[in-house]
């Protein structure tokens, strides 16, 4: 397995290299000149040149890229044009917040998907199943930023008692209770779209498994229906669900960008959204790079887990 993981990590290098080029080119083709944002009002040419040199933007693009990449591989993503804070430091400060939101969203999404998906599959074509599949389709189609606003409206202005505050963030170490209360609404917002996808996957995987011979054998042995479902059906049906959850990491990162903006959560998504209007290149580059690398690593983790969970998949064949 170690060889497989190493091989996959090595294969990631050229892709990661292309990703860095992509990020650099995308950010630098911007039509505006960030120097003008930082040179103050009515700057003279000497000031503009000085600011340009200070930001390192006076050098040719390939040189800027090489310098950025060589520093990036050492963990230095440059300094924010706006705040002069180190980008790596800014991301590290905010990453745990986004991570906490992502974990909470995955927990909500997976727990509900397993519960409702299993009931829906067992009671296939019943009213419960019909409602579940309809809600699933609705969940995929609902814009998460609108859902976020509706939740804020509901819990801040309609439901009495302010059970869940409509925004802001309190670190877990400062006040665990307040941290969790503030996490509920944003986590539900991020979880909804992925819940719909996970639920659909649990249901269809279970339906596939229900038709297998070993299910008939388990029932013929006289096993209790609950044991048949939990020990035989769910165990096998969960394998493709793992893949789907892995793919959801991307959706979680996407969801975090919008959700952190709505709920004023100081995560990396909000950091990027705040950096975009001021053309703060290093911050946008850093956040996009971290998002892409996290997505790539989570995909790798899922592939490894998938091969580990399903003995029919050998690490050799999975390499293809």
């Amino acid at each position: 397995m170690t060889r497989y993981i190493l091989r996959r990590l090595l294969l990631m290098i050229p892709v990661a290299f292309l990703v860095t080029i992509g990020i650099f080119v995308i950010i630098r083709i911007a039509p505006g000149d960030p120097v003008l944002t930082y040179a103050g009002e009515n700057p003279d040419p000497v000031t503009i040149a000085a600011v340009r040199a200070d930001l390192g933007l006076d050098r040719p693009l390939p040189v800027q890229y090489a310098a950025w990449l060589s520093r990036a591989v050492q963990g230095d993503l440059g300094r924010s044009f706006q705040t002069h804070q180190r980008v790596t430091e800014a991301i590290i400060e905010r990453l745990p917040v986004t991570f906490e939101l992502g974990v909470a969203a995955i927990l909500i999404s997976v727990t509900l998907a397993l519960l409702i998906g299993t009931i829906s599959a067992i009671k296939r074509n019943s009213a419960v199943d019909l409602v579940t599949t309809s809600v699933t389709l609705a969940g995929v189609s609902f814009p998460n930023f609108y859902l976020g606003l509706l939740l804020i409206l509901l819990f801040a202005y309609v439901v009495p008692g302010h059970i869940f505050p409509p925004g802001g963030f309190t670190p877990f170490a400062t006040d665990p209770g307040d941290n969790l209360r503030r996490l509920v609404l944003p986590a539900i917002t991020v979880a909804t779209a992925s819940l719909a996808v996970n639920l659909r996957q649990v249901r269809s995987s279970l339906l596939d498994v229900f038709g297998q011979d070993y299910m008939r054998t388990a029932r013929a042995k006289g096993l209790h229906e609950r044991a048949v479902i939990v020990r035989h059906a769910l165990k096998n049906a969960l394998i493709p669900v793992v893949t789907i959850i892995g793919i959801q990491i991307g959706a979680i990162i996407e969801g975090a960008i919008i959700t952190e903006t709505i709920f004023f959560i100081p995560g990396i998504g909000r950091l990027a959204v705040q950096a975009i209007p001021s053309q703060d290149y290093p911050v946008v580059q850093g956040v996009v790079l971290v998002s892409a690398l996290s997505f790539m690593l989570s995909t790798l983790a899922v592939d490894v887990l998938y091969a580990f969970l399903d003995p029919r998949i050998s690490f050799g064949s999975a390499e293809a």
Partner: protein
Amino acid sequence: MSEVALPVVVSLQKPGRVSSIRYFLRRNPRMIVGGVLLFILLFMAAFAPFIAPYDPIKVNIADQLQPPSFQHWLGTDDLGRDVFSRVLWGSRVSLSVGVISVSIGFLVGVSIGLLAGYLGGTFDLLAMRVIDALLAFPALVLAIAITASLGPQIQNAMIAIGVVAIPGYARLTRGQVLAVRSSEFIAAARTVGVPPWRIMLRHIFPNIANALVVQATLATAFAILAEAALSFLGLGPQPPYPSWGQDISYSQRYLANMKWWMSAGPGIAIFIAVFTFNFLGDALRDALDPRLRRSG
């Protein structure tokens, strides 16, 4: 005289195109529901200038922040603009972004996938590494980065969402081409000297079109949602022009005053549009996938 058994000639009438479509729809009633929803959406977008009761950008302070009524079905915003009219005009933005960006993704992605799958070798290797690099980005993050870089305009949102859609088509097409490439009819076409571009377009493409149609329908749903998200972040069409995402973002400041109708119209509109394409995509997949068709 011995009896001679004459061959019985039964003239089989080939079913016409209309009756084939009717049969197809009868077997797949969900297609009818999806089709009707799509027709309503397209009708609203196409005839928005005639259906909309008010000018969507004309300020009318006297009517500001009116709740839904007979005069203003979905109420008015803080500038007295009719929300229903803005929703109708906004459908033009969302649907055009959906269709154009999906077309960009379709054309580029399918071309890359066809060439990579059919030619193989170095082109396949290089093209797929680039596609892998594009796939390494969470889709919306990439769309935000591209739009932020090109500038907040509707055309740039279309390009960004189109670029994001490319890898999906390329991967799907390549996989389908690899499955079809070794078929006997392709070998036969090659043997009689049919040029490669013709084999790709006339022999392979029609055989993989079903999967691509399904992908295009579902990708349109994603494109509408992505455009709304970009507009919400201020990266889509700029005010005062109506756009669903931007209107929801604008309405946030009135949330505390319980002016819920400002966001309800565009929010529900996004939901219906995305739901329509998702529903249609699912129905198409069920109708066109032979495995699902058999299992009923």
